[in-house]
């Protein structure tokens, strides 16, 4: 009798610890919406669609988040453009080509890259990458969207590599054996059989990588120059949504329009990251079902 009571207690407490993260997520959602909603009444949601972000202005405050959205999109797109070939390429090498001892070395090192704090990567970017980008491309300054994309790629590659590699490794042996038996070369087998079979897993990996990239703040804030310009040219400074929230939240007057506008940006970021994660889980789920 006593034992069952004890077991129940343990079971309950474990269930609570497991559901705590759900509680926290719900709390965050409620809080952010509560702070953002008054913006819709005053000054109105239309204010968000202006083309200028000038939250501190003696003339007229302007909360157009368009430059911030395009900034985030540009940096994320650049990062993914660099991440996909490197991330998927290294995943293919590790799972299909590398000798076992090479894999023993490569995998932990790539995963270690994911563990470096982003402010350290940002500092590295500011000191090493920014001057390098500046001299390589002959620019006036290296504080550009491209530098941001490069740094973020560095942070997304481990995620993409690790998950893609798992996907590639779980392609059934029989597929490869059948391809090789039909006389296809090893490279042909990899690109025509193994990679397509693992494609949904790789897609999910890329989406999770993008989710990490879009939410990244510190490193981006340090290297992109933070000028709220609407541009799709990679060698121009941009201001991302995350950097804006991080830079302005500290000093903003509590309850002001500016404060509410920052929470509106928070909602957009939350929705983007949430959407990407859900999509990735869906793709990953389908891929697991198909197996």
């Amino acid at each position, binding site marked *: 009798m006593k034992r069952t009571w004890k077991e129940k207690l343990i079971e309950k407490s474990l*269930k609570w610890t497991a*559901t705590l993260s*759900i*509680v926290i997520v*719900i*709390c965050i959602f*409620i*809080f952010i919406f509560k702070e953002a909603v008054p913006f819709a009444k005053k000054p109105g949601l239309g204010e968000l669609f202006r083309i*200028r972000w*000038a*939250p*501190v*202005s*003696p*003339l007229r405050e302007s909360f157009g988040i368009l430059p911030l959205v395009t900034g985030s999109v540009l940096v994320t797109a650049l990062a993914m453009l660099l991440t996909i070939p490197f991330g998927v390429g290294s995943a293919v090498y590790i799972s299909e080509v590398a000798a076992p001892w090479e894999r023993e070395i490569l995998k932990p090192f790539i995963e270690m890259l994911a563990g470096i704090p982003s402010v350290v990567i940002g500092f590295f970017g*500011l000191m090493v990458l*920014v*001057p390098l980008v*500046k001299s390589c491309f002959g620019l*006036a*300054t*290296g*504080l550009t969207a491209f530098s941001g994309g490069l740094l973020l790629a560095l942070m997304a590659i481990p995620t993409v590599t690790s998950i893609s590699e798992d996907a590639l490794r779980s392609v059934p042996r029989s597929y490869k054996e059948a391809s090789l038996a039909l006389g296809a070369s090893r490279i042909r087998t990899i690109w025509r059989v193994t990679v397509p079979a693992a494609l949904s897993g790789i897609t999910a990996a890329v989406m999770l990588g993008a989710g990490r990239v879009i939410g990244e703040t510190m490193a981006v*804030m*340090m290297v992109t*120059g*933070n*000028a*709220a*310009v609407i541009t799709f040219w990679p060698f121009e*400074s941009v*201001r991302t949504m995350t*950097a804006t929230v*991080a*830079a*302005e*939240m*500290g*000093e*903003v*007057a509590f309850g002001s329009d500016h404060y509410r506008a920052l929470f509106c940006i928070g909602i957009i970021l939350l929705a983007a990251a949430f959407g990407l994660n859900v999509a990735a889980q869906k793709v990953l789920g389908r891929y697991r079902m198909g197996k």
Partner: protein
Amino acid sequence: MKTDKNQKSRGSDMALIVTVCLIIMFAGIAGGAAEKKMVTVKGSDTMVHLVSHWAEWFMKQRPDVEAAVTGGGSGTGIAALINGTTEICASSREMKDKEKQQAKAKGVEVKEIVVARDGIAVVVNPQNPVSELDMEQLGGIFTGSLTKWNQVGGVSDKEILVFSRESSSGTYVFFQEHVLKNKDYAVKAKLMPATSAIIEAVASDADSIGYVGLGYAQAAKDKVRVIGVKADANLPAVMPSEETVISGKYPIARPLYLYVSIAAREDVTAFAGFCLSKDGQEIVRQEGYVTVK
């Protein structure tokens, strides 16, 4: 049957979770404060950071007093002092004669205390031959109406790279008020998260210009070049230093004030006294302002 029961208990768990969420949310609102002597400081947004630091340290020395700091602008602070809704007003400008008369009419005699000075240095890359600019040129560069170095006495026909602090910074606002004459910054101005980032950027990019607090500029003398500023195109350029800031010759500088009522309570005058004390002035220095003593 058993699975049914399990599902039911899961449902009630979820309800419990949501309830707990709501309790957490509202607990914060309900929490009250203990009885303490309240000193309120209201006024300049530029000084909010500085005054908050003073308040923090003051409350450590005087646990019986609670100091509340709010911004809203110097004008708001002065109005609040006149109306008796704040004990201390922090102001980045002098009280106008009209305001003094209003205060007198309300029976409030105010005391003016200069607690710190604020001076901003303009820095360029050491390779840049430009060594002085007047206020109008600076305003043009930072609002984006002047975009090339050869328009302001330089040789390069390259675009000027403008570096500013983030809009949350008091320096940003001060520079906007005094140099940009309340116009907006150029859209292309790059907003850096920290003064050190401005120094790094200006040190590495040849066509750049930026502004930093006086203390920082002096510490980074070997990386960037501080330029002289002319209040007017016809006047000689003045280099920023503690002396030129104190004497008022350097144009991008101003005294920062606290205003208190002469008839204020002991804890209120103690706060003002703390700001002028050795500890208080040390905070002034740490915050990047020029001390008054």
